[in-house]
Structure formats: structure tokens, C-alpha cells
């Protein structure tokens, strides 16, 4: 299990993580969502032992990870850069990482490399951004660490390759209970890959839930009432526990609200709406509306 206990990380005057509590169970495909500068990459770097926390603890299987060789050998971090080790060929890169990770599997490497078919003896500096990404991902999977951290891992991959990489990761998760932590702004991919996700904003976790349950607890409600002359306000819907968004388009009201469908319908019943359609939100919509509540609103630009 990967754990952040009241973790604080500062960069000078800027607080990137402010007392974050997080647990990522083994075998999970965990997605890190958040606005720019929310602290997603910082969490990955803390888990990979690159950063040391200013406060709290960062644990891998109960061990502090910073400056701990044993803990670090359990983690492989694929960062969002693609320019490292330019002078290596794919094979040299493989040999290099093989030296540091005891579980490195030549078999898996050959298999994955065979699928992707990257040039083996050309320097990485001659690779495209997507090819470099493929190379480091297959090496990361081949290292066979219990934890694989991917920062914008699918950035630069073509759609076909995205599918291939996702399948590779899914296979690894199935075969050896790999824990994958993915940080991405591509919510569709998180939606497809992850079973759990956490939303970060300004160094704090807004929510940390399983995606299936998350999707079922936030609804978009379309309402229409018989009395068209009456103007309903947000306060008229106070029976709904948590409204994330409220607006009106002529006689149609749109509400984004948290809660189970039955509970929401029960809350609306006293108002006798003539139309009450409930639509589950996509992850992207949840992301937008959750952050809108926190003032991170695209409407500001409009």
C-alpha cells in the first residue's frame, strides 16, 4: 500500500501539498486528477523518493520511501519528460534499469518490445516523443516493480498505441497485482483505466473514491414545473443535500447535485415537477463541477 500521512510539501513560499492524507491499496489502478499545479506530479515524485516531504510521511508498504533503497526498488516512475538518457539505445536503457531493479524481466521486455517494435540499437535522441514514451513504459513494466507511477503517461501516444499501452498495463495488473498510479488531465483515460481516483486542488484532496460509486452519486437533473410564471431559486431546492451547480434556461432548470437517485427524487417530490430527468455525470463533468464549487470556473473567462 502507498500512503501519504499528513504530507506537506513546499517549494519555497508555495505549498504544493498541504497535509494530504491518501491511501492507495495494492492492485489498484489509481487516477490522480486535478487542476494545473494541484500537486499530482508532486505526489508521484514523493512516492518515487525524488522529493522528501517537509511534513508528514510518505510510505510504501509501511516504509518511508525517501533515501530508502529497498522501498525505491518497489517503485518505477515514468515522468512527463522524454529527454532523459538521450545517449542510450533502447537496449542500453534496458540494461541500465535491469542493473537497478532485481525483478526486471527480459521476457516481458522482449514480449512488449516485440509488440511495439521500436528500433533497438538507435539512440533515444533519434526517437519521437511517442516512441520515447513507449520505450520508457515498456521498461517500466518490465522492471516488474509492485508499483508503477505514470505522469502524463499517454501524452504523445497515438490512439492505437494508447490502446496497446493500456492493454499492457491491464495485463500487468492482472498478472501480478501491479499497482498503477496515473496522473493525467485526460479524464477519459482515467475513466477507462482506473478504478479509483482522487481529485486534487491547491494541494488538498477534494475527493478520493472509486469511480463507479463516484459516477452514481452525482447527477445532472433537468426540471420543469407546471407553473411557468413562478421563478424557482436555489433555496427552493434546499431539500437536496449538496447542489454543485444550478441554472435556468427559460422554464427548464438544470441542477448538478450529489446524492443517490432515489434520495434526490424524494427531495424533489414536494415541488411536483412535471419533468424530472436524472442523468449520471461523466468524470469530466464531475471534475468541472467539483472544481467550480471551489472557484475554479471556466465561466470566469466567459
Amino acid at each position, binding site marked *: 500500500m502507498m500512503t501519504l500521512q499528513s504530507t506537506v510539501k513546499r517549494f519555497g513560499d508555495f505549498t504544493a501539498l498541504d497535509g494530504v492524507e491518501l491511501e492507495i491499496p495494492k492492485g489498484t489502478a489509481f487516477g490522480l486528477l486535478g487542476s494545473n499545479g494541484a500537486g499530482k506530479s508532486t505526489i508521484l515524485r514523493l512516492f518515487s*523518493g525524488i522529493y522528501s516531504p517537509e511534513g508528514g510521511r510518505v510510505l510504501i508498504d509501511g516504509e518511508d520511501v525517501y*533515501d530508502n*533503497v*529497498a522501498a525505491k526498488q518497489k517503485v518505477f516512475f515514468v*515522468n512527463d519528460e522524454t529527454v532523459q*538518457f538521450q545517449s542510450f539505445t533502447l537496449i542500453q536503457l534496458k540494461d541500465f534499469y535491469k*542493473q*537497478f531493479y532485481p525483478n526486471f524481466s527480459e521476457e516481458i521486455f522482449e514480449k512488449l518490445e516485440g509488440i511495439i517494435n521500436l528500433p533497438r540499437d538507435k539512440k533515444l535522441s533519434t526517437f519521437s516523443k511517442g516512441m520515447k514514451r513507449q520505450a520508457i513504459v515498456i521498461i517500466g513494466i518490465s522492471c516488474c516493480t509492485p508499483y508503477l507511477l505514470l505522469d502524463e503517461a499517454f501524452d504523445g501516444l497515438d490512439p492505437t498505441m494508447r490502446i496497446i499501452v493500456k492493454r499492457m498495463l491491464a495485463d500487468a495488473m492482472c498478472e501480478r497485482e501491479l499497482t498503477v498510479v496515473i496522473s493525467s488531465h485526460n479524464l477519459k483515460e482515467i475513466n477507462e483505466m482506473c478504478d479509483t481516483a482522487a481529485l486534487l486542488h491547491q494541494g488538498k484532496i477534494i475527493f478520493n473514491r472509486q469511480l463507479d460509486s463516484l459516477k452514481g452519486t452525482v447527477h445532472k437533473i433537468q426540471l420543469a414545473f407546471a407553473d411557468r410564471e413562478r421563478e424557482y431559486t436555489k433555496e427552493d431546492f434546499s431539500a437536496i443535500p449538496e447542489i454543485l451547480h444550478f441554472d435556468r434556461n427559460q422554464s427548464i432548470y438544470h441542477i448538478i447535485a450529489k446524492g443517490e437517485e432515489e434520495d434526490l427524487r424524494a427531495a424533489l417530490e414536494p415541488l411536483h415537477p412535471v419533468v424530472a430527468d436524472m442523468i449520471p455525470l461523466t468524470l469530466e463533468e464531475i471534475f468541472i463541477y467539483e472544481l467550480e464549487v471551489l472557484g475554479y470556473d471556466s465561466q470566469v473567462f466567459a
Partner: protein
Amino acid sequence: MTARSLPNLPLRNMLRVLRQNRKMAIVTSILMVISGPLIVTPLIVEVIRDSAASEARRYLPSLEMYAGIGAFCLAVAVFMGMFCAICSFTETHKKSQVDMLYALPLTGNQRFFTDFLGGACMYILPYIITVILGWIIIAIGSPFVTPDPSETFFESDLGVLIRYYALGTAGLFVLMLLYYSLSTLITVCCGTLFECIYTNILLNGLIPGTIAAILGLISSHVDLSFEYLWHIIGFMSPVGGLCYLIYLMDGDFGFNDYCSWTYLRGAETHNHDMLPNYFRWIFVILLLAAICLIAAWQLYKRRKAEHVGKPFVYIAAYYVMLTLLTVLILCLLDFNVVGPVLLFAAIVYFVCEVIRKRGFKRFWLSILTFIGTVVVTVGVFFLVIKTDCFGREKFVPAAATITSVEVSYSASCSEDFEFTDREVIAKITDFHKSIVERKKTSPSPATAINKELSKKFLYQVDYTGYEYAEDTYELDPISTGGYYDDYDNFTLFGEKEDQEDPSDYGRYAETFSCDLTYYTLAGTVIHRDMYLNADELAELRSILHDSDLYASTCASALNTLITQDVGINDTNGYRVPDVFRITIHKSLGKQTRAVSGGSASIAQLAAAYERDIRSMTSEQRRTAPIYCTFGEEYDNSSAFKVYEGYNETIALLEVWGFTKLTVPERYDFLDKDNPTSAQATNQSVLSIRIYAPDQWSTDSLKYPNSSVSYSRNTFVNADIDGKNPAYKDHLMLFDGLRTEDYYPEIIALLDVAQEEYISEEPCYCIIVNGERYIIPPKHNDLVKAVIEKGDLYGSQAVETYINEHAAEIWPQYYTTDDQYTDDQYTDEYNEETNEEETDMNANVSAGDAGETPAETVSGAVEPETAADGEMPDTTAGDVTINSSGAIAAPAA
């Protein structure tokens, strides 16, 4: 899947460093590896050539150029150490690599040391290989060297080569370690590649540069030897250390008799065993390298991944660099250019600050820190100078702690002395203490006079009267002669800036330089430069010149002098022929005789000379007449004097056919029949002046010194007051008169005149062609006889003529043009005097014939002199001998 065992993770990271920087590693390795053989091969070939028979030499090529190329390759490869360090620690300045390198399963310590060792392998390993290759080449070449049976292996060229190679390569090895460690430390402190490079380059230059500038500044104000202080630089930085090593090698590590680099220890010509210092230096450099490494390690541990790319992660490195740079510039304040220096320092400081801050953020803080730096630097300089380097200047080591003391002083007969005699050492330290004490409590009279004069006179003029120095020299309370640097051999006269009367000069008291170098039991060297007045120098001479070392050193130096003078120099040194010629000098005359016996005769002379020196005390020597001198001219301070009490030497000279030089013999070279040629050189004419005891003075009665300069250390009192109109004539008349005959009384007087004579009793002084002699009081009757007998009209007439026409003859004395050159003077002088000569000769001839017009005779007394009433009375006066032998002196 089973996990493999990975026991050598750090080693693997080290290999990663090498692999990532393999291009640089290859370049460095190639340069380094070829440099050793390229340097050593020509050297061993040269050794083989030197030892081979002349026939065989033709088949051995000279490979000096290859050695030069090898040295170049080595220099470049050594310089690459900085880049090896920078490239090994890429995680400190390359953002793209931080994540990957920090994410590797390594601890911070493992990462640091493997990075360090990875770079060291790139840098040091090729060096070790090239050194080994060098040894192999020496081993291969050694059997071809033909041994010289007269030499031990240690003395042979091959032995020297092996010594050089062993000590030189070991020295360079530790220097490379220091350089690499320092570069690592700097790299760890920096956040970007640009910073790493320029900070490395600047600091490597600034550390020795600023230290040198500070030490230079201090030593220019405090009497501590800069050369000795420079020694510190060799122990404090890679660049300084490299200079130190080069000088060590230049001096063959102290194995040879001649060791040019030893001035680093304060000694210029003496041999000292440098090996202890060499090993001490090795130890200090290694210690410094270790300190740099530990500092880099500790800073690296505290450094975080996110610091990469930040300007100066450890700001101290930046401020160290900036402070060194500012202090270096501020050292220029010593050149009295305060405004420009401060402005320049400010510009450099603020430009650096703007670059570091990427703008003008909190710029007021930069202004404050700059002001603080300037105030602190100037304050420290001021404090150091005012406290005489915190009392260090006045520190005199205890005699018991000194193994030897080296003394070098002006007018010391060309040799320095290194005393090991406990008694002499104690006397020297006591003398040193007394000098320090008396200068601390009250400046010497000479200093006081000079200080007063420096306020009064802005210009100084040397004795020739036509070269002006526009400098006003600062006077140091403890150094009475700092301003004498360029004019050490001359007596200085000051002239007021707005001076109207050209005769109104002021005279500076003469000072003498003295360097003391103590070598202590602890192996340290304490060096002091000081300036002594004449009395103090006399005191020092009395300590040194009674020692056995003085006698043996002078005798040895005499042997060397004559050997080099008469010997034939070939590759084996000077070879003295069986028959050779020796010349002795006395005043203006000399004798040369052929001597047989070769170098044995010279050794015999030196031995006799040594015994004679021992036979007389320095006190006795000061009053003894000089029989003759060896070497140079008679009046040169480096000449070897033979006093009349040197019986063995004189006896030997007489055996060789020399006779005592008499006064007429001294002047025999004058061409009596050709007055024109007689006037062609300064010494072909005779100008004689006699001064009564109350009319002349010296800086010290204890040490009346005659040297190369005219009238050195002898002054007409009226000159000192700046009111003597004759002063100008005193300068001008030196080549204005000539003689063909000698008046017997003058001859008798010159025979008893002594160059040195120490007496509290008042003495007459006779100045011959500007050179002063003392007349011992017992011969006062001879002086009076000369003056009484003198019919002075002849020469006085000439003098009067010159005085009246001086402005036409030497116009430069009457102009304020400081640029008037010696050549101009000489050319004009020659032209004009040729024209005037006819008239002068006519006058003299007329005087000779008793046909001198009455007005010429009556005009002999100069109007100014008469008015002031300061010219000599009947008891003394200016005396010249004209061509007919008549003596000119002031009228009664």
C-alpha cells in the same frame, strides 16, 4: 518471478556516469594517456644522448617538440577536471535528468560518491595510466644510458629525471584531486550549467588572484616580504599549487646548489632541503581536497531534487565569488585611484547582482551589501596596515627557535650570508628587536628629516640634477627608505614645486635595505624587509663582519670572482689557465700583473684573504687605509677591499709583483699632452674641494660610505640647508677642469686620505671628482699646508667663468622642462663646450703665463657666496688644480 541479487548498485551508477559522459571521458583519456609518453620519451632520449659518445649522438633525434605537445595535451586534460565534475553531477543542473536519477534505488550518499568516483575515474584513471606508461618508457630507456663513473646514480641525469618524474607526477596527482574536489564543491553549490562553468573558472582564478593582490597590498605597506607571503598561495588553491609545483621542479626540489624557486621561502640564492616542504605541501593539498570533498558531500546531502535549475542553490558560493572579485578590484585602491576603483567595483558588483536576481528585485539590498563589502574590506586593509599586520611585522622569533638566519643588506660586498652560529643568531635577533623597538617608539632621525622634507618638497631630483621624479613617496614609520626604490644608488635632493631659486634644494637622508630570513626549528620561514639608516647599518655590520662566516663567504666570493674573471667558460665550468692576469684597483688607478699557478694561486689568495679578514675586527677595518681592491672599480661597494692590515694578502700580492699604488700613479692615465681627450671623459679631469669639519657632514660618522655615486653620503652643510649656491657648481664642475701636473702637497694629502675613517674627532674632508675622502686628524697639518700654499687664481678664474656662463653652457639647469633628456643634454653639452673650450683654454693659458687680466682674478669670488658669507674661509675652501698645477681656493 524471483528477484536477482544486486550487490553493486553504487558501482552500477558509477558506470552510468562513465557511459553517459563517454565522449568526454574518451577525449580526456586520449589527451592524458598520450601526454605521459610524449613528455617522457624526449626526456629519456635526451638523457641517452647526453650520456652517449659523440658519434652515437648523431643517430638520436631531438624530440623536444614532442615534449611540448605532450605538455599541451596534459594541460588541456588537467583543465578538463572541472568538466568531469560538472558532467558527473548532472542531477544538480539538468532538470530533465533529476527525476530519473533521484528515482533510482540509491541513497543520496551512494549517488554522491558514485557520481564523484565516476568523474574521478574519467579524470584520474587516465592520469595514472599515463604515469605508469612514463615509468615503463623510463625503464625501457634506462639500459641505454651510459653511466658516468664520476657520478652517483642520484647525481646522474637519469637520477634527476627519475626524481623529477616521481615528485612531479605525485605533486600533480594531488593537485588534480584538489582541483576536481573543488570543482565538485562548486558544482554542488550551483543550480545551472552556466553557473557551474563560470563559477568554477572564476573561483579557480580568484582564490589565488585575490590572495596575491591582498598580500601584495599588505606587503607594500608593511615590511613583510611579498615573496614569502606569496608562498601562502601555493598552499591554498589548485592554480597557486601548480605554480608552487612548477617552481619546485624548477629548483629540482632543493637537491641542487642553485635553487631558483627558493625565494618562495624568502631566500633567493641559498639552497635548502625542500623535500620536507614538498611533503608538507602534499599533505596540505590532500587535506584541502578532503575538506572540499566533505563540504561537497554534506551540501549534496542537504540539497533537494527541486533545487535544480535554481540560481546558486548555496548562495554562499556566489557571495564568496563576488566578495573575492570586489576585494580584488578594491586592492587597486593602493594606486591612489579611489574614485575609478570604487566605480569599477560597483559596476561589477551590481551587474553580478542583476544577473543573479534576474532583475532588480530588492536592489537596495545589493547596494547595502556592496557598501558593507567596501567598508569591511577597506576597514580590514586599514586595520592590517595600521597595526602592522596585527603586530606580525614587529614579531621577532626567539633565537633558540631559529636554525639559521639569512641576511641580505645593501653595500654587503655582493654576497648574502646564512648564519647558523648560535651566538651570531642571538646577536641578529637582538639587533632586529632593537630596530623594531626604536622604530616603534620614535622614528630614526633620518626618518624624521625625510618626513619633514617630504612635506616641503614635492619633487625629488637625483644627483645629476637633470632627472626629475614626479612622485611623492609615502613614508612608512618603520621603513625609512620606501621612497628610495628607484634611486637607491643616488643621494636624493628635493625641489619645491613652485621653487624659483634652482639652488634651493633639500636633501634626503640615505637609507639601506636589509632583509632578514629566519629558518625556524618548526620548519617555518619568517622573512622581514626593513630599511636601516647609516648608523643602524653600521651596527649590523659590526655584528656580521666579525663572524667566521663573513670571512669564509668573502674569501669564497673572491675566489669565484677571480676564477670567473680569468677563467675560460666551457661546459664543465670555468677553467683557469696556468698563467693569468689579475688587476688591483685603488681610487682612479689600477695595476695588472701576470700570475702563474692557475686556480691554486687563486685559492691561495682567497685563503690569505680569509685569514686576513679574521685577523682584523670590523672596528679596525673602518679606520684602516685601503691598500687596494679586487673586482670592479675601486669605489664600487661590491669590490673586495684589501686593507693595509691584510698582511698575508698584501705579501702575496707583492710576491706577484704588485706594488702599493701611489697618488701620481692613480692619475697617470691622464693624458697630459692632450687636453681635449682629457676632457672627453669625466674621470680624465680633476676637481678637488676641501671642506673643514664644520662645513660638511654625513648621515653617520660611524658609517661614512663611499660608493659608486658622487659625493655619496657626504654633504656640504650649506647644501642641506638649501642655501648653497655652490651646490649647482658642485654638480657642474665635475668635468670642467683638468690638470697635467700635481702639486706636492696635494699629492701628500691624497696619500693619507681614507675612504673610510670613523672618528668622533672633527675631520677635514676632501672631495676628488666628487668622491669623498676623510683626512685623519693627525694629518691636519697637510691640509693646512695645501690651503696656505694655494695660489688659487687659476682655477677660480675658470670656475668664475663657468658660473657666469653657466646658463649658456647648460641651459637645461635653468629650465623647468622636466623632459630634458640625458641624450639632449650630452649632445648640447658637447656642441657648446667645444665652442667654449677654446675660450676656457685661452683663459687658462693666460693664467699659466701670468698674463691673466686683473679683472679675471678679482672675479674669482662669487658674488652670492660673498654675500651669504658661507663659503669656506682661509682654513678650507674649494681647491682645483689647473693645467699648470696651480691650486684654486676661496680668497681669504
